[in-house]
């Protein structure tokens, strides 16, 4: 008969703080008219959470909540993601005429969900974290209520999301039945102890997990929602989704598969390798023939998921570190790209067609130059940050003996060069048809400055990031 003992709240402080602050933001929205203030508040609350994360190492709620380097790194990515999203949203929401305070609150809740996912030590927590993140994102995707595309985006995302989480639940149920526990570590021990490796039922549950997580990271063939949702959702949310939930998905994927199913790596690697190849292939190849830049970046983000999966497949610390690094870098460069895209949006102009970028270098050299950098970074050309992400993962893969997989990945990345270059071609090598008017704002400028600086600096001095990723994984 366990007596109730107050659990140690130190590790979970960031989450708690952020939750309270999010609620505060929600309330503040009621009597603050200037939404910029709300945005500022949200950023501050994220900042607070980040500060609290400093000394939050530890495991609590009897193993249900793990705050280790791994989760902290991911949380940093989430913070980064949400802050940049807020920065690029401020002006954009006004343009889209949906300038409501809930937006920021939901962003924060979604972030909390991701944080919980990252440090979930128990499948229940994990599941709830996913739901928290997902539900908020569904709403955000459909945030432009009067816009059919936005509706459609959120409907598709929601229905398929619910569909996928049903599978996740089924998986959890089965694993529970097999092991009698939902604690990830315990599952790992149980599988190890009772030699469940190769048990078909375990396999089935594992496959269900694969589906659910693949859905979150938009891996082929569970990616179908991504292009439509990315295209329909508000651009700022597209940016948000293309980084945050994806990263969170990888967080849980890594946690579950490397810990719980660590002992049956061979099996799930056999599942993930084809998925990874398909993901890179479909993502890169279909992106070639896109006409809408948001959609193109959707496919590009699918492709990137493919590269990152390789890091997971290796199952080594090096590979995992690669995943962390890649996601961090990806956050910067993708956010940057979306920031530029948002600039083109103005009241009377959607500006999400690739053809809208014709001659941008002539009309707006600076914006074009920024886009150039981000595109080359996404391609992975040194000396941009994107290169080091790929490099890290590929090195890990080769080290783990997956040289052929790396060659495949590299071939696909060459293909990807083509559609990233298309943007450059349009911007630099074609004549502008009509002059697009850029809508800029200080916050947007700030976001661009941050991302650009990061892409370049990490590109030239990646040492810090790499070291950080390595340190984060000590004891994982």
């Amino acid at each position, binding site marked *: 008969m366990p007596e109730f003992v107050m659990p140690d709240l130190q590790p979970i402080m960031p989450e708690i703080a952020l939750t309270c602050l999010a609620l505060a933001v929600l309330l503040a929205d009621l009597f603050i008219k200037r939404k910029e203030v709300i945005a500022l508040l949200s950023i501050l609350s994220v900042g607070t959470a980040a500060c609290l994360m400093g000394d939050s190492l530890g495991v609590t709620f009897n193993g249900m909540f793990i705050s280790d380097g791994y989760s902290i790194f991911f949380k940093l990515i989430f913070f980064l993601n949400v802050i940049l999203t807020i920065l690029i949203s401020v002006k954009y929401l006004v343009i889209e005429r949906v300038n409501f305070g809930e937006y920021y609150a939901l962003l924060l*809740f979604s972030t909390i969900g991701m944080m919980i996912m990252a440090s979930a030590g128990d499948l229940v927590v994990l599941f709830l974290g996913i739901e928290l993140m997902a539900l908020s994102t569904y709403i955000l995707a459909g945030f432009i209520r009067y816009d059919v595309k936005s509706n459609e985006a959120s409907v598709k995302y929601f229905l398929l999301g619910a569909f996928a989480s049903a599978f996740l639940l089924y998986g959890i149920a089965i694993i529970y039945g097999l092991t009698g526990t939902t604690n990830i570590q315990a599952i790992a021990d149980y599988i190890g102890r009772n030699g469940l490796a190769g048990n078909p039922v375990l396999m089935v549950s594992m496959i269900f997990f694969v589906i659910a997580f693949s859905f979150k990271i938009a891996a082929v063939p569970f990616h179908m929602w991504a292009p439509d949702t990315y295209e329909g959702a508000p651009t700022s949310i597209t940016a948000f989704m293309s980084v945050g939930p994806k990263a969170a998905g990888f967080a849980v994927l890594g946690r579950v598969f490397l810990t719980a199913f660590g002992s049956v790596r061979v099996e799930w690697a056999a599942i993930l390798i084809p998925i990874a190849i398909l993901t890179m292939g479909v993502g890169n190849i279909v992106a070639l023939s896109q006409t809408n830049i948001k959609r193109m970046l959707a496919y590009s983000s699918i492709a990137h998921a493919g590269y990152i999966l390789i890091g997971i497949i290796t199952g080594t610390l090096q590979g995992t570190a690669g995943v962390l690094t890649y996601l961090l870098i990806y956050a910067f460069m993708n956010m940057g790209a979306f920031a530029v895209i948002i600039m083109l949006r103005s009241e009377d102009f959607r500006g999400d067609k690739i053809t809208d970028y014709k001659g941008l270098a002539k009309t707006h050299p600076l914006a074009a130059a920024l886009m150039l950098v981000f595109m080359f970074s996404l391609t992975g050309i040194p000396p941009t940050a994107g290169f080091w992400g790929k490099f890290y993962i590929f090195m890990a893969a080769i080290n783990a003996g997956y040289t052929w997989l790396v060659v495949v990945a590299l071939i696909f990345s060459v293909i990807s060069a083509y559609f990233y270059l298309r943007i450059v071609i349009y911007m630099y090598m074609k004549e502008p048809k009509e002059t697009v008017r850029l809508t800029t704002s200080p916050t947007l400028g700030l976001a661009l400055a941050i991302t650009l600086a990061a892409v370049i600096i990490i590109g030239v001095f990646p040492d810090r990031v790499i070291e950080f990723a390595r340190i984060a994984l000590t004891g994982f």
Partner: protein
Amino acid sequence: MIQQLFFAYFSAAIVLLSILVITRRNPVHSVMWMLLLFFHLAGLYLFLGAEFIAAIQVIVYAGAILVLFLFVVLLLNLREELKTNRFITSWPVSLIICGGIFLLIIYSLRDFLLGPIGKYSVEYVRKETNTVALGKILYTEFLLPFEIASLVLLVAIIGAIVLAKRREKSH
């Protein structure tokens, strides 16, 4: 023996009702069948010694969620629904896929081995009622998930408001 019969009835009913739920043309009917289905499920749960969940199934699920459905269904008048066809044209393909998956799952279940037996035997639970036992775990071991669940519900509320409530488009 009696148990088998009991189970046989419930399972048969459940399967039948589920089929009805997804095949009815009129959503109202579907919801109704769903309602009936939930009661049967509740019964099954009782049979599995989960009184509390059975109760929730009836009160929350049937009582709240389904009614919500009903409201929505009635809110959107669906006259044309009754004319158009209910399945997408390519439903046989889906049928094959589902059948395949089903068979494979069943096939895998052959060698299912159950996890460790815990202490909550029927007698043990009967000593302190199911609800109490549940509550104890819920508020000690599963405190964190419980809190998170509350957050989830909160988000749901906000979301519902944001999406559904009329509000003049802010400048």
